[in-house]
């Protein structure tokens, strides 16, 4: 699943470590999220949305996936 986390993070001049600390995850998780290698859970997606003050749909791009 694609997302705009890296774009939003850089736009707000936040480092990966700072974002990780804010979301209570490791920096490796943020890296994997930004690379699209890992899909966030609902809880983490919600935390990210609160951090960026946006909706989940504005951050995470839902495409036509078989799993959905």
């Amino acid at each position: 699943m694609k997302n705009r986390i890296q774009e939003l993070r850089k736009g707000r001049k936040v480092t990966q470590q700072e974002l990780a600390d804010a979301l209570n995850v490791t920096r490796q998780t943020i890296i994997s999220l930004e690379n699209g290698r890992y899909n966030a859970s609902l809880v983490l997606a919600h935390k990210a949305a609160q951090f960026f003050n946006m909706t989940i749909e504005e951050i995470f791009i839902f495409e036509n996936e078989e799993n959905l």
Partner: protein
Amino acid sequence: MEAFRKKLERRVKLYALVGALFSIMIIVSVRVFKNANDYSQGTALGFCCGSCGVYLFMLLKNAAVLRDEEKLRRLYIETTDERNIAIAKETMSTSYAVSMLVLVAVCVISGFFSETVSLTLGAVIIVLAVVRLSAGIYYKRKM
């Protein structure tokens, strides 16, 4: 975070208890079973000493974490990070499957050389399968 701290404190006490138990087993191996054959005594002693060392290391490591707020926070994040939890679950699942395959193969092959070894491995396979089945049933009911 406070719940995690309390959990860690309980874990430190558990490590101390288990380490003490293994220490007692070392003494028992040396004193009580001194007439046992070398292999049996060596295996028991080696296992107990190794386990004692591991639990002592874990005890000291976690006790040091409890004294430092920043280290405690880092450990909390590492432990509760959802990606790390997902990796651990996938690792366990794959490891179990591969281990069972290897055990079955070795069990069959060893049957041509030693019945005792083959039967022992067969028993291990059955125990692992039953434990896995029981855990599956438990978590299906729980979740």
